[in-house]
């Protein structure tokens, strides 16, 4: 008979190693899934995890790692702050879309300006857009006690419709021959987020790095970070210590919204290049997995974001080379979160073998 015994302290060693174990277990389960789909599991796993890094065309795929990883890391850093405090923003996808719309809209209003202030202006507009979208669930929660999970998620669908409306209406390229979608921002010298497209470097990558460092400092050295952690781990103690929950909700949802908005702006003015109906690629949802896989820790999120980016790139390769369905990668990512959550048990509890009846 198995019995669980709560550890007085969560095991640090296991806390660090469970994400790795989860990845390995997911690879095995994923291999079985790919085998069930009639693909060679070893070839599929190699194509997804090895080829983008060390394969023949790795020189092309490696920069992609930064391109796909940057938005995931940027969004996940923001989400992790709230998740730590028990504030659940799951509408990052919507904040990402609104950030892109506001940033691109602010830039396109001045087309074809070549001012050096244009791009910074777009960045601010993008961050503000995401922030405002994140503040809706925050304010409703603070004012009326509304559940932020449901409100932030509903706003994703609203943002989706706004995106469709904007790419067919206000932001549509006047010289686009009636096709949906805005002007190409990536080709517009003063508005693009690309620094060096050949190396996959854009301002989003830089912003992601800065976010990782700032989040690390915030959580480890700043009283606000301490309060965030306290509210999540010991809500009662936090109340006695005088932590202001209102401020915390506004800060966490606002910050994660702003970071998601930034991710959207950098994406729309670089890798994606234009506002269009199919702009939203699900980064906002995958970032939830990234945040958990990274143990809600900034450095962990950095690594998890790169790993998740790898599955995107490897999935694309496997789709074109092995005809592995794109949805298989989505299942793979979902499984990863499952195994991770299941293995978390070992961090907080000790599994003991006990004689039946003794307990």
């Amino acid at each position, binding site marked *: 008979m198995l019995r*669980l*015994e*709560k550890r007085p302290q969560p095991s640090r060693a296991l806390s660090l190693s469970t994400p790795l174990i989860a990845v390995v277990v997911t690879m095995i389960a994923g291999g079985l899934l790919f085998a069930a789909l009639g693909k060679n599991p070893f070839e599929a796993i190699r194509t997804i995890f090895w080829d983008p890094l060390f394969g023949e065309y790795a020189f092309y795929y490696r920069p992609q790692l930064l391109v796909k990883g940057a938005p995931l890391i940027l969004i996940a850093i923001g989400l992790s702050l709230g998740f730590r405090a028990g504030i*659940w923003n*799951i509408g990052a996808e919507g904040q990402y879309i609104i950030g892109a719309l506001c940033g691109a809209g602010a830039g396109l209003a001045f087309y074809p300006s070549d001012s050096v202030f244009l791009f910074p202006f777009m960045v601010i507009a993008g961050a503000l857009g995401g922030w405002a979208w994140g503040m809706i669930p925050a304010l*409703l929660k603070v004012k*009326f*006690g*509304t*559940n932020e*999970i*449901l*409100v932030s*998620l*509903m*706003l*994703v*669908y*609203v943002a989706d*419709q*706004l995106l*469709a*409306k904007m790419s067919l*209406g206000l932001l549509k390229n006047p010289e686009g021959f009636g096709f949906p979608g805005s002007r190409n921002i990536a080709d517009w010298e003063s508005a693009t987020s690309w620094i060096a497209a050949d190396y996959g470097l854009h301002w989003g990558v830089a912003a992601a790095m800065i976010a990782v460092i700032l989040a690390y400092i915030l959580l480890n050295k700043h009283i606000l970070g301490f309060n965030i952690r306290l509210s999540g781990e010991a809500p009662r103690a936090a109340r006695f210590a005088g932590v202001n929950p209102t401020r915390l909700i506004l800060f966490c949802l606002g910050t994660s919204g702003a970071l998601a908005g930034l991710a959207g702006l950098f994406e729309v003015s670089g890798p994606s290049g234009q506002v269009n109906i199919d702009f939203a690629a699900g980064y906002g*949802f995958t970032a*939830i*997995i990234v945040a*958990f896989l990274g143990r809600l820790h900034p450095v962990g999120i950095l690594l998890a974001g790169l790993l998740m980016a790898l599955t995107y790139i490897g999935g694309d390769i496997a789709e074109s080379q092995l005809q592995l*369905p*794109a*949805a*298989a*990668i*989505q*299942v*793979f*990512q*979902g*499984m990863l*979160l*499952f195994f991770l*959550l*299941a293995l*978390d*048990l070992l961090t*907080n*509890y000790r599994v003991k073998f006990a004689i039946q009846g003794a307990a």
Partner: protein
Amino acid sequence: MDLSAINPVLLIASLMVAATPLLLAAIGELVVERAGVLNLGVEGMMIVGAIAGFAISVETTSPFLGVIAAALCGALLSLLFAFLTQFALANQVASGLALTLFGLGLSALMGQSYVGVRPPAMARLDIPVLSDLPVVGPILFSHDPILYFGLGLTAAVWAWLKYARGGLVLRAVGENHDAAHALGYNVVRVRVLAIMFGGACAGIGGAYISLIRVPQWTEGMTAGIGWIALALVVFASWKPWRALLGAYLFGGINVLQLNLQAAGVAIPVEYLAMSPYLITILVLVIMSADKSGAPASLGRAFHASH
């Protein structure tokens, strides 16, 4: 714009159809939450139910087998959540999200060969005299059997929660799991069964969308209905009859905005399409003031050692 094209009788009849998947999923989640568990995986279980029901219906040409398969698949998927939250003691919010993300991927994978296929139609109720009555006929007596099943289920859940011993145990577990445990009830077993019931209901709700409401299979076709069902449970203050009222209200809004789109109202299609989500937020805001109906142990993990 031609508003006279909107026929009120047909509007009410199609409102009931639009409300049924919401009602089924919401009643299931209501029972889960009354047992003290918050399962955010409704959307994932619904979409897997939608494709499972669709696939089995197409393969066996029997929509009833499809609906049963959808219920089984929904319950099976919910077992994953039950394992994570009840045995591995994982965070319920995170586990529910995982279930939704996983379900969306799984359904896309399962549904690849079913895009563009037409499912077999489910026979509608056809009572010689009653179904032909004007106004009352199309509204009350000529729907598909699942719609009536949804109404019956609402009544059954209400009566079970209120009068049955099992319902009392379930509510006790949801209000105070430590007390229920001390009384000798098996908290984990009650919760696992409730979670499976919720999964089966969500599965049937999903199958209703892909088999009757739409009827076809497209990726991500539940489009947030599972999430609206979660909001509906809050709206209903965890009471079955109010869930029915809420489902018809939401169904009505959805049907009305679709009718307005078709009638060519001057409001852009996109703004009409976002209205159900905005109204959900509005309703949540109004209902959030009163949390007295919420089960006291909602969302808290239970382990006998605590």
